[in-house]
């Protein structure tokens, strides 16, 4: 306890006397910390945003398109068209109970859509209610997606992508309840899609799509074929996507009588993309972290250098103190404390400044495509902790070694040092 108070007194006194040098060192560390935190927080923000964007189309699912056979099979010729029927939804659902969802969609391009005098040419989607959750077609407040009753009654209701609603009725604040015509046939708007970032799509972006109940679609166009089938496993099973894809193919091959080894179906395994994206983002974060680490290392070398020079400069001072009866451990600890104080203060100020900066960025009403893709820089608690640990180690080493060297010689050697 007494030793601690001696250390404290000496530390505080000498520190006050050398505030200028300390301040410069601390500024150097603040700079280093800001550099690495800026890199990491941008990386973190981008990661976060890109994960959200990647989920824009929905996640943990596969989309399957029909195709043509390439081999003749059981007396049937090659080149046959294999297209899914609406009844396949129920069929695959029954054959593959391990899947959480099986649904499908109709697509019809180039349909005439108008609201009053505004005419647009859009693709019409015929959909089932489960599509809302599966493909992230969430309505804005006050609206809803297609429901079971719409399906049953084959209602003429319409769910608009947010960009479509904006184009079609820019002056209408709440389009729900308005009448919109498809090819001259009136439909009631039941909802407008919540704006979202979407990085992947097949067909138009969801914001540009127009959706009606699949049953209404069948009635309008008497369409015998689905455009594609979508299915999703339970979340716990997403590691088994390849297995499910194979089984789906087997069921389809049995039903449509083609060789299961024939590549007829086209399957988009969204989980695969998620994984790749995740890996890219992790790779990017590692890269940014590495660059940041190097930056911090440079700052650390700076601190080590300053500590080294400072100990050298103060060798005489160390000699005087030791002649006056300072114990070796006191001299040592004084320098270690100084180095630790400098690194932690510098680090803390740097992290605080970055935190203020990112928080300010969040408050600023910036709405542009770059930020929508990049996301807001986010300070991660873990990154902050790692940096503090690294700084601590740098501080400890850079203070300890030169001071130990200075304190290990006899006082007279230190006194003689010029």
């Amino acid at each position, binding site marked *: 306890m*007494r*030793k601690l*108070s*001696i250390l404290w*007194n*000496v530390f505080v*006194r000498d520190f006050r*006397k*050398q505030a200028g040098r300390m301040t410069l060192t601390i500024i150097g560390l603040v700079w280093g910390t800001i550099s690495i935190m800026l890199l990491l927080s941008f990386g973190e923000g981008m990661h976060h945003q890109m994960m959200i964007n990647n989920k824009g189309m929905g996640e943990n699912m596969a989309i399957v398109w029909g195709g043509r056979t390439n081999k003749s099979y059981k007396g049937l010729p090659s080149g046959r068209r294999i297209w899914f029927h609406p009844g396949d939804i129920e069929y695959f659902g029954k054959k593959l109970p391990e899947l959480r969802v099986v649904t499908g969609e109709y697509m019809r391009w180039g349909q005439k859509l108008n609201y009053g005098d505004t005419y647009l040419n859009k693709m019409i989607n015929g959909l089932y209610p489960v599509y809302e959750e599966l493909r992230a077609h969430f309505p804005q407040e006050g609206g809803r997606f297609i429901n079971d009753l719409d399906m049953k009654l084959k209602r003429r209701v319409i769910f608009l992508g947010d960009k479509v609603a904006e184009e079609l009725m820019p002056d209408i604040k709440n389009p729900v309840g308005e009448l919109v015509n498809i090819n001259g046939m009136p439909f009631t708007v039941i909802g407008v899609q919540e704006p979202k970032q979407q990085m992947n799509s097949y067909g138009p972006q969801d914001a540009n799509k127009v959706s009606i109940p699949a049953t209404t679609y069948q009635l309008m166009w008497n369409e015998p074929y689905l455009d594609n089938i979508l299915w999703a496993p339970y979340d716990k099973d997403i590691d088994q996507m390849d297995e499910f894809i194979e089984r789906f193919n087997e069921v389809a091959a049995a039903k449509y009588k083609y060789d299961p080894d024939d590549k007829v179906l086209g399957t988009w395994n969204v989980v695969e993309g998620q994984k790749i994206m995740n890996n890219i983002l992790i790779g990017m974060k590692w890269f940014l972290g590495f660059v940041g680490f190097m930056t911090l290392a440079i700052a650390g070398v700076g601190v080590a250098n300053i500590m080294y020079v400072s100990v050298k400069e103060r060798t*005489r*001072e160390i*000699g*005087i*103190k*030791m*002649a*006056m*009866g*300072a*114990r*070796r*451990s*006191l001299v040592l600890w004084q320098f270690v404390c100084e180095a630790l104080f400098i690194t932690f203060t510098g680090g803390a100020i740097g992290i605080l400044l970055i935190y203020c900066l990112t928080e300010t960025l969040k408050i600023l009403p910036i709405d542009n495509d770059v930020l929508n893709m990049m996301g807001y820089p986010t300070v991660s608690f873990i990154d902050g902790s790692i940096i503090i640990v690294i700084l601590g180690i740098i501080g400890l080493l850079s203070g300890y070694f030169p001071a130990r060297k200075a304190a290990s010689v*006899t*006082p*007279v050697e230190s*006194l003689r040092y010029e």
Partner: protein
Amino acid sequence: MIKLQNISKQYITGSVKFDALLEINLEIKERDFCAVVGPSGSGKSTLMNIIGCLDIPTGGEYYLDNKPVSSLSADELADIRNRKIGFVFQAFNLLPYATAEENIEVPLLFAGHSRKKRLERVKYLLEKVGLQDKALNKPTEMSGGEMQRVAIARALANDPPLILADEPTGNLDSKTGESIVRLFHELSAEGRTLLVITHDPNIASQMPRIIHMQDGRIVNSHAHAA
């Protein structure tokens, strides 16, 4: 109080060996007031550094208060320097960034005294050396004589029985030097043991005992009537 037995100190620089001290035998009793004289390079400073536990001899044994110094740990030596020995150097060796007050406080800090006690002691010492009005001056703002007074006050901080001075007047004019020597006489009168290295035969002759050194040996150590 101090007993040196066959003390040697050899410096080795590369392949060159240099004997700074050769088998020194010396005894200094309590309340002795000694001058150490001799030409440059005769080993005066080395002798004093060893007596002051600032340096370690390469041979022989040094007994301080009947304890062999070689048996003491670095921390014990530090405590001895702190409590038992006061140093006065030719180059003053004050901390350049600290005021007179703060310089005098240094040994008190290491001794772990309370702030109140430290301030009291510093005030007393400043008065003793006659520098009350320079308490807040830094070394650069003081004359050589004033700096040496601060250094003496610092040497006295923990009231040590032994004062070692290495050419304390070497950087001072003769008049200022005289006042420093007078201060040493006061310290001796207080009952302290003093060992003063000097070049100045005038100053040496004022001291009861003179130790002559040459080529690392004591050639003559005699007491004359004070």
